[in-house]
């Protein structure tokens, strides 16, 4: 079957992603004609672009519902493969997209609205593509579709020198990471003689050394996207230098893309003994370092953005442990997807609340800026509290199940000579450290402070965004099956 035919047949399955991709591209083109309109009607433009983007997203969601869950046919060994992971990635993208577009509604930079929404939609479209790809080429295409618009976004949302610095930093490091990824891909291709992931995965079982080297290099490349230590250095600077909404984008979308790509590359059948002997220790060390560095650094921060960046790093560490459980076949890939969904609800909810506080005239740059926020902005503070409780991982929130399932997955390993119990204990200790700094944020919200001026500006879109997140966070605790 030639490639063209495969692409044609995949097109119907990829329709939701294509809607977003084409819509995003058209919006980008629109920027050329919109230049003059900016000056006189900013609010109208804001509403128009946000509604167009939402409409595109809803069209994509409808398309995915209409398509349903496709059967796995013989066709699905080509460029794309529509299995459970693909569907899950698509849903994660929709969830994130919905919240992020709502968050952007009133916070997007007025001078670059078309580019902003165009880039956002293209990133959203890239995640289903990554999720469905069954070939190194399409995978790389999807990953670059995530990162290139991200450079643009960081560039146009810049506020000051910090912003420029973070954009440049992200660009350089991201290119560097892509090089790692490609180097690994070249090894995988060289050993197996194919770019097809199905072929490559069957070759893992042979246990060739070069194969593991290639795998580790690919993982290095992806570690950058998921902000795993030692590729995390950009995260605090980028979060610090950009807007709240974009910090939300950065904490979620690249992470989803990276983890979905990791799941695709290692496959759901587990690695052979040869490859897993090399890869699992690397991943375990990486996960341990990521958790510890993330939490310890976050503990020491007074800058709220940097704190959240490091907390995002720490969550990557937990997710990496879940990935190890997946590699050992103790868990299905749902363990990662449900964690990511819970993570979306709590982290994006948190950023949406911060966004509302900023939009209403408050500050949210330092931890101290939130002092007494409950008395100034009760609704957003309650949303923040739920998100923080979920991030701590207490019951009555989705974060509890996310952490609990990862714990189960990690400890489920029944081989006698394993370190998994210790990794579980390390993760538990990290969770306690994390509870310390999340609690500091929580108590800051409720402390009595001198500045008692209520913030009264109301932004419906942000309110809706964090209400969705808060409700999902609570509902998912009671009905974990739908997560």
């Amino acid at each position, binding site marked *: 079957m030639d490639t063209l035919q495969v692409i044609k047949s995949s097109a119907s399955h990829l329709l939701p992603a294509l809607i977003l991709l084409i819509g995003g591209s058209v919006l980008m083109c629109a920027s050329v004609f919109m230049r003059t309109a900016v000056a006189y009607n900013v609010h109208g433009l804001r509403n128009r672009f946000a509604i167009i983007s939402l409409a595109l997203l809803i069209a994509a969601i409808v398309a995915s519902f209409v398509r349903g869950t496709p059967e796995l046919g013989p066709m699905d060994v080509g460029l794309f493969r529509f299995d459970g992971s693909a569907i899950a990635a698509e849903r994660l993208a929709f969830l994130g997209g919905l919240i992020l577009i709502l968050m952007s509604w009133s916070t997007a930079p007025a001078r670059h609205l078309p580019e902003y929404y165009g880039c956002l939609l293209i990133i959203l479209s890239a995640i289903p593509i990554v999720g469905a790809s069954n070939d190194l080429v399409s995978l790389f295409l999807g990953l670059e579709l995530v990162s290139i618009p991200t450079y643009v976004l960081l560039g146009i949302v810049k506020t000051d020198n910090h912003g420029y610095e973070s954009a440049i930093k992200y660009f350089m490091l991201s290119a560097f990471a892509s090089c790692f990824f490609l180097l690994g891909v070249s090894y995988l291709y060289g050993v197996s003689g194919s770019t097809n992931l199905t072929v490559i995965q069957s070759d893992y079982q042979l246990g060739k050394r070069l194969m593991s080297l290639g795998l580790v290099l690919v993982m290095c490349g992806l570690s950058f996207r998921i902000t795993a230590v030692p590729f995390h250095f950009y995260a605090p600077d980028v979060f610090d230098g950009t807007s709240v909404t974009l910090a939300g984008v950065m904490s979620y979308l690249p992470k989803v893309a990276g983890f979905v790509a990791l799941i695709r590359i290692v496959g759901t059948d587990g690695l052979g003994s040869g490859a897993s002997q090399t890869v699992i220790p690397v991943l375990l060390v990486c996960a341990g370092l990521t958790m510890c560095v993330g939490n310890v650094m976050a503990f020491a921060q007074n800058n709220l953005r940097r704190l959240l960046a490091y907390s995002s790093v720490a969550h990557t560490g937990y997710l990496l442990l879940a990935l190890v*459980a997946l590699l050992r*076949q*103790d*868990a*299905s*890939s*749902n*363990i990662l997807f*449900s964690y990511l969904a819970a993570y979306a609800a709590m982290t994006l909810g948190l950023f949406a609340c911060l966004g509302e506080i900023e939009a209403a005239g408050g500050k949210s740059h330092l931890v101290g800026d939130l002092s007494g926020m409950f008395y100034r902005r009760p609704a957003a503070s309650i949303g923040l509290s739920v998100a923080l*409780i979920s991030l*701590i*991982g*207490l*019951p*009555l929130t989705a974060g*509890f199940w996310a952490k*609990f*399932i990862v*714990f*189960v*997955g990690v*400890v*489920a390993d*029944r081989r*006698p000579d394993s370190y998994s*119990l210790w990794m*579980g*204990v390390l993760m*538990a*200790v990290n*969770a*306690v450290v994390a*509870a*310390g700094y999340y*609690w500091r944020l929580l*108590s800051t919200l*409720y*402390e009595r402070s001198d500045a008692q001026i209520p913030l009264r500006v109301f932004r419906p879109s942000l309110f809706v965004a964090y209400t969705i997140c808060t409700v999902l966070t609570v509902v998912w605790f009671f009905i*974990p*099956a739908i997560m």
Partner: protein
Amino acid sequence: MNYLIPLLIFVPLVSGVGVLLAGNRSKAASSVGVAAAVLTLLLSALLAVQVYVSPTVSGLGSILPRAIMSPDVLQFSLPISSGNYDIRWRLVFGADGISALLVLLTGIVGCITILLATRQIQSRLASYIGLLLVTIAMLMGVFLAMDLVSFYVFFEAVLIPLILLINGWGNGPEPMVASKKFLLFTLAGSIPMVIGLIALAMSPVNIGEGAISRPSTISLLELSEYASAAVAQGSTSVAGSQSVWIVWLLLLGFGIKLAILPLHSWLPTTYAAAHPNTTALVASVVAKLGLYGIIRIVIPLAPMALAEQAQFVIGGLGAIAIVYGALLALAQNDMRLVLAYSSISHVGFITLGLMSLTSEGLAGATLQMFNHGLITASMFWILAMLEERRGRISLSLEDRGMAAQYPKLAVLMVFFVLAGAGLPGLNGFVGEVLAMTGMMRVSGTLVAIAVLGTLLGAWYGLRIVQRLLFGSAGSPEGHASKHEGDLHTIEWAPLAAVALLCLVIGIVPSRVMALFQSDTDRLAKVTEPMTQQAHPNFDTLISSVTPAIER
């Protein structure tokens, strides 16, 4: 299928959330809350009666609930598989004698706490009652859970309403700091504990020679069957295997909750900061969660590792806690701290009884959980009433001669102090003596230390009575407050009822113990061979005394 069990969790939960949402402006909300609390008390009493009259069931495991609820609807599959078994989470709730006793305790203490709150809490009363009801629902969930996941979920969920209660209504110094300490300490125990729980469910048990594979399960009932089977087959040493770490992880979590000695420092801070009415619930029921966890999970599921590794460490810490807590209680002047340290001291007796792993010790410890719950809650309620009248109570010399002013309060206080000190004829005596008898069969040294503690216990108890109640003629100086004079009916009647209950337990303990005796005996059947096997030399007293008796 038992409908009392879901009702016990849902009545307080739904009414609590309802009262919370109704807000503080509506007058009816707090009355609804009180009604729900009374209903919960009735339901818990019904459950206790049901368990009491139901015949003993027979089975393999050491946990055999006499009332059980596990609908097929509540089954979830987790995205985890272990050794090719998919893990399914089936919710199992049930009650044996031990659960029923603690459910009853929660019902009694919760109901009275809410009743008294209507007089003592001035601001945001409805929210306070709502949060208390939610806490009660979570506590019921812990005591009724019969699978590890439900147990852990409720165990953790207790924290959230409790933190809000400590923070929102705390009138001590820095409630924020105290609740942070409480949260972090508890999480530092309970998050590592979850690793232990999962490993317990997943790890293979040692039976005979090698580790045999068994399906991973989270049901306590099945796990206890495997553990009993392992004991029955005469399994040997556990050293070096995973179960050693599992036991320590579990004991860390439960130990922090019960404020075992080196990990106790959250307790005085929290008790000093929270409103004494809240503290009554925390000290009497929430602090029991750790003890309940040990008797429900550690003892039946990991008896070998416990006997071999931790029995004397934890038992010794308990014995030291008895003396250390009593000494600190003697040294404090703040009444809240006196009661906090006395609570640490009393919990030491329960720990000692549990760690004896003998049938007397376990029965005594279980009874003492109930007794200590009643006594310590009553002391904190009395303290709340006193603080309402006189402000923060200090034992330094100014506050003297209150017996003349508040005769009813004085009578109740003397009664509960004596019960706490272990006066024969009252309930504290029975539990402590049984716990020490149990320990006597294992280690005489620890009992010797504990006996010293009873002496000190009487000392600090009488110090409270002497400093506060008697002395120079009552000087009605002090604070103008809403309530002057002696106790109102709504204040003394519940306490008198509790006092009556204490008296009944003290006079006919065997009737009350019939509720859970068969359950603790079944536990002891598993643990006694273990402790003898693990510590053949420690049993000196038995080996020296038994021949003498036989002769």
